[in-house]
């Protein structure tokens, strides 16, 4: 009886994490809000008025009421499931995200390696979308997305290893996000640790790549390949892609906050949630909004070279320093 009860509680907590907080509604709402703020700030930087902050919500509501067209030549099952794959991946990711001082995310699962794999799902979804839509723009977007993913995965993997080895110390490596948070609470945040600063910089470069904003919006370049993989999508499927990208922003920003500066402000839950959101927002401003309005777009081979030359080297420096126990 006791077992059944705790089992139900566990499932209930998991569902809560998945659907309401920190995944589900919370991540969705915050993600969409961030998108709106991002657009507004970018517009102000370009001396435009910009859309209202709730514009992304309006877009998503409008899109979900529209008919979804499927090209005749598309491979229907793949074409229709692609947006779901990305969305589910990100929904789980958001549920796993521990929010320092508030929630630990889905119990027993908050692991950086799980994250590393799940984070690639939206990109994989875009690739499936691009290749199954039978549009030549989609095909180009597919190959570009794949190249870009390889490029930014390399620094990401090294960042994760550097963090894990730093926390693990003599146990070699520690991948649990909760342990990473408690380690930093004891030994100080990684952002203040000179050994980890190169890794943090590398993470800053990783963010625009994975969020698909300039200078790395190559797979969806509007003026080159007219949105690439998303070209053939419409209606609810397109809305799902936008939701995915909104949650993904929160996931990658939150992940950055957790592994580099998870410090809390006292014990108040509401304050900590706001503090977390604020840190995510600052991270977005630095890595996405400002860079986006101060630069153009790379060519794909230039982006690939860039990731191997700068972020990968930065991450490697941290990794080597950690390896030699600095």
């Amino acid at each position, binding site marked *: 009886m006791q077992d059944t009860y705790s089992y139900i509680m566990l499932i209930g907590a998991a569902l809560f994490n998945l659907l309401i907080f920190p995944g589900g509604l919370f991540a969705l709402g915050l993600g969409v809000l961030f998108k709106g703020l991002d657009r507004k700030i970018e517009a102000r930087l370009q001396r435009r008025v910009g859309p209202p902050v709730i514009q992304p919500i309006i877009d998503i509501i409008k899109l979900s009421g529209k008919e979804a067209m499927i090209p005749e030549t598309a491979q229907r099952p793949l074409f229709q499931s692609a947006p779901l794959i990305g969305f589910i991946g990100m929904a789980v990711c958001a549920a796993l995200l521990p929010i320092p001082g508030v929630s630990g995310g889905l119990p027993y699962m908050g692991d950086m390696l799980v994250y590393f794999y799940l984070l690639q799902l939206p990109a994989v979804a875009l690739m499936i979308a691009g290749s199954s839509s039978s549009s*030549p*723009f989609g*095909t180009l977007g597919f190959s570009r997305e794949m190249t870009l993913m390889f490029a930014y995965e390399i620094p990401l993997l090294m960042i994760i290893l550097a963090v894990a080895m730093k926390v693990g110390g003599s146990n070699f490596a520690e991948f649990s996000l909760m342990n990473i948070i408690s380690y930093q609470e004891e030994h100080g945040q990684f952002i203040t640790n000179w050994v980890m600063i190169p890794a943090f910089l590398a993470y800053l470069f990783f963010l625009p790549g994975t969020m698909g904003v300039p200078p790395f919006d190559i797979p969806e370049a*509007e*003026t080159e390949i007219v949105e690439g993989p998303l070209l053939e999508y419409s209606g609810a499927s397109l809305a799902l892609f936008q939701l995915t990208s909104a949650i993904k922003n929160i996931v990658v920003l939150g992940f950055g906050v957790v592994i580099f500066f998870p410090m809390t402000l006292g014990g108040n839950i509401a304050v900590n949630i706001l503090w977390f959101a604020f840190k995510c927002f600052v991270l977005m401003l630095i890595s996405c909004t400002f860079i986006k*309005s101060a630069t*153009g777009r*790379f060519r794909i081979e*230039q982006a690939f070279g860039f990731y191997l030359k700068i972020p990968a080297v930065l991450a490697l420096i941290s990794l080597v320093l950690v390896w030699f126990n600095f």
Partner: protein
Amino acid sequence: METKQHETKSFSLPLGPIHVALEEPMYFKLELEGERVKHVDITSGHVHRGMELLATKRNFFQNVVLTERVCSLCSNSHPLTYCLAVENLAGIQVSPKAQALRVLAEEIKRTASHLFNVAILAHIIGYKSLFMHVMEVREIMQDVKETVYGNRMDLAANCIGGVKYSVNLELIEFIEKSLVRTEKHIKEIIDIYATDKMILRRTTNVGRISAEDVIKYGLVGPVARGSNVRIDTRKTAPYLIYDQLDFDMITETGCDVHSRAMVRLRETLESIKIIKQIIRNIPEGELNTLLPHIPAGEAMARSEAPRGELFYYVRTDGTDMPLRLKWRVPSYMNWDALEVMMKDCEVADVSLIVNSIDPCVSCTER
């Protein structure tokens, strides 16, 4: 289908006729191998409006209005060159005052047109802030147009035998003030385009065309000057009062997209220089003359539109309607050279290269 039969790795990518990066409808069928363009098929004719036929159904006055509507960005060059051709035919002497005012309209339009093209370059490489900045600077010139002529694009400045407007002291002061502002901003913009790493990375060594090819394909305008070919109708065959003005022919040696953009940017400074010279020295005189009977015969006129040399030919039989009105626009030649520029380029650069010739499809297909 074809690609499957040959079992090659290439596939075809349609670009246009409606495409975000193209200002006007053109259709390119690209044969790609991965990201590399192997073959380009250019199809035109999407905005054919039969204007040359229309011109023969209208009298000489009405054709000034018609030619103004050939294209929006060179909407002053068309009626101007048409008027020059008709004036050549009828032997009309245009007063020095009207000539100076015609140059003024031409150079204001040229500045705005060049800035527009350079802004689109920034838009294509995804540099939206720079796009907004350049467009804002262009907006100063748009304001000048609106204040002086009452219109932002179609100035309706020309008529056969002269011009329709004059500038008073108040307007001259306004124009001068705007020029100072524009010049300051353009110098900044030139600095950005010449040094910004992202722009250099995307535009240098892209869409190259050698000086020999420029001559072989008969290219004109900033495209030719970007490959260090000294062609500028204002210098090589001066019309209006261009031979009395002090300005330089801008050339660049890069032969690529970047040098074409730099030619355009530096030319805007030359245009401002020209406007500054004439605006305080507009001679006294009549704005236009009485229109004599236009005799049977044929005549031509050339001028330097923002995109290059514009040529008008008119043939008449003594009635009030032309028998034939034919014009050749700069984009017609420049367009053809796209296949040279696009040879083995990347898909990412296609729209950049198309933009670099500043194509005016509505002129070319009229």
